[in-house]
């Protein structure tokens, strides 16, 4: 819709009410009309002056440009006449060393900004009603934004576009970095998709003992039932849970040497992982790779201390991934027991067993035989994690760090498909043995993020004490029982650990803050230059190599 730029003011000449008590009305009307004509002429002259003023300003700027051009042409003509073809030196250095010619491409930007509004339109705008004075509330705001911005923000769309462009450039850069990394290590993801079902069946058989082991066909059917049968909100959980376990299984099948390799690579990322935002779905496969090696590290520590497998005669390879195996055998074990009734208790039991094994592993010197685990969860057919876990004399810090992190893995699938029926499970997992206490609050904090709507404040103090009472909690679904564990058995050690914990926490928090500061600084540096933003984005998109300095060289005038 075309907007009227200049409106001549008295629009209607004689649409006014006539004053009373006038005898000659026609004359009156005539006089009124003539007076309005004069007013119209005055506004016309004002607009004419405005039009000529704008045209004059433009022409004036052109005159400057023309003059400067004229001077340049004169200089050039002089220098050209002075050129002598004989004098010209053609050295290779000159050709290569000379700065590449880049013409100054000035683009018109910010055309419809408030500042470029023509004067007559600005006057029309001023006649309009002002927006409510919300800016008086600005000093009372916490986040420092202007109050009026929430009512009407003229720069809203530009800011939106700018953010999107910057985000796109960052994404492109990250993609390129990932591609480079993928080129370096093409084999890692290939290891993930392995035959997942074989291991599960093995665990089941070993868990239930030779007498109770079912046929493979029956197992598969029941497992599929478990995954697909229950209520909708349970569906996602067991499936994601199972999927994660599949990933863990696949890696657990790796030989020891490869596992250690993965360990060394993954360890550097271990600490960062708890603090990433909810890991993106495509990263699941890779995400499983990282924490699983850490679990394996703790398990390998177990292996080293007790090379002999327990009385059940399991292979050392089977022994190594202690934490991951218990959860998967549990779902399958549940499939054998009553499904519906135990469905509610399904989530809690799978998770508590992992902590109990490491707990008992690190504490009890004597490993109970396989029948003992059955005592832990009488209603649930247990795999034999406790018997498997031999005692660890002293948990080394890397192992300590690794174990709690690995425990976050079995918990992660749970919170992702989270429902209210799972308040207890998350607290148990972060309750590793007291020996691993200092790092456990880290995982507790990490877990606090995914299970947002969960039981609040998994207190760190009572947390570590929980694993000391593994038998009772697993079968119960009592959130109240979780926080209040038995009295602290290791107060002296806890002081030293808490110091370490604080240091770790600060380190991770510092990293976060640094990242934030970097981002803020970047945002400040970025000007409102459309051309620059666009050029950066295009440069990143089309550049084959990571030349981040490309656009820095270009001088953007205007």
């Amino acid at each position: 819709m075309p907007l009227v730029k200049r409106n001549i003011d008295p629009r209607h000449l004689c649409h006014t009410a006539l004053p009373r008590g006038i005898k000659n009305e026609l004359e009156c009307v005539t006089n009124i009309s003539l007076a309005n004509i004069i007013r119209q002429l005055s506004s016309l002259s004002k607009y004419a002056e405005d039009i000529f003023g704008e045209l004059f300003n433009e022409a004036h700027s052109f005159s400057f440009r023309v003059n400067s051009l004229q001077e340049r042409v004169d200089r050039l003509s002089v220098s050209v006449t002075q050129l002598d073809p004989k004098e010209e030196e053609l050295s290779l250095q000159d050709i290569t060393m000379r700065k590449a010619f880049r013409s100054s491409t000035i683009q018109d930007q910010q055309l419809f900004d408030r500042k470029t509004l023509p004067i007559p339109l600005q006057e029309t705008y001023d006649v309009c009603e002002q927006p409510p004075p919300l800016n008086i509330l600005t000093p009372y705001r916490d986040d420092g934004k202007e109050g009026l911005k929430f009512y009407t923000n003229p720069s809203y769309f530009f800011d939106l576009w700018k953010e999107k462009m910057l985000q796109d450039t960052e994404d492109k850069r990250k993609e390129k970095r990932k591609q480079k990394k993928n080129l370096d290590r093409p084999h890692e993801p290939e290891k993930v998709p392995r035959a997942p079902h074989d291991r599960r069946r093995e665990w089941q058989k070993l868990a239930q003992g030779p007498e109770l082991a079912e046929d493979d066909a029956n197992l598969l059917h029941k497992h599929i039932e478990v995954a697909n049968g229950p209520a909708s909100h349970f569906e996602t959980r067991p499936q994601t849970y199972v999927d994660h376990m599949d990933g863990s299984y696949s890696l657990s099948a790796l030989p020891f040497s490869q596992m250690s390799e993965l360990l060394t690579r993954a360890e550097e990322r271990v600490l960062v992982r708890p603090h990433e935002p909810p890991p993106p779905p495509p990263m699941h496969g890779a995400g499983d790779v990282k924490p699983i090696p850490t679990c394996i590290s703790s398990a390998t520590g177990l292996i080293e201390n007790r090379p002999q497998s327990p009385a059940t005669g399991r292979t050392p390879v089977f022994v190594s991934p202690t934490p991951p195996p218990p959860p998967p055998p549990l779902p399958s074990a549940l499939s054998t027991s009553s499904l519906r009734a135990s469905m509610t208790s399904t989530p809690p039991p799978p998770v508590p067993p992992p902590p109990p094994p490491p707990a008992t592993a690190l504490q009890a010197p004597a490993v109970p035989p396989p029948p003992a685990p059955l005592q832990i969860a009488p209603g649930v057919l247990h795999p034999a994690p406790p018997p498997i876990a031999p005692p660890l004399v002293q948990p080394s810090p890397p192992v300590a760090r690794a174990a709690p992190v690995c425990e976050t893995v079995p918990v992660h699938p749970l919170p992702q498909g989270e429902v209210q029926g799972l308040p207890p499970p998350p607290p148990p997992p972060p309750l590793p043995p007291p020996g691993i206490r200092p790092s456990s609050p880290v995982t507790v904090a990490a877990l606090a993020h995914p299970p947002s709507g969960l039981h609040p404040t998994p207190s760190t103090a009572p947390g570590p004490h929980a694993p000391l009472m593994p038998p009772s909690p697993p079968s119960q679904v009592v959130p109240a029982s979780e926080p209040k564990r038995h009295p602290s058995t290791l107060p002296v050690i806890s002081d030293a650990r808490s110091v370490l914990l604080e240091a770790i926490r600060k380190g991770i928090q510092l990293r976060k803050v640094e990242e934030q500061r970097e981002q803020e600084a970047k945002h400040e540096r970025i000007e409102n230059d459309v051309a620059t933003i666009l050029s950066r984005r295009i440069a990143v998109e089309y550049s084959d190599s990571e030349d981040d300095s490309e656009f820095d060289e270009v001088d953007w005038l205007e």
Partner: protein
Amino acid sequence: MAGQEDPVQREIHQDWANREYIELITSSIKKIADFLNLFDMSCRSRLATLNEKLTALERRIEYIEARVTKGETLT
């Protein structure tokens, strides 16, 4: 009767004359306004053409300067 009509008729005649006069004036005001708009538009288009030519000239001069000047090295 004629006496009554005369002053009224005269008034009406006068009124018509006045209105015609006013109409003349207002139509000329409109012509002036149209002229101003047309002038504005044509001026802007000519200035825009000038701008284009100037920009092209400036770029050519930059190029020629870069070609002609010696001893320019990488910054």
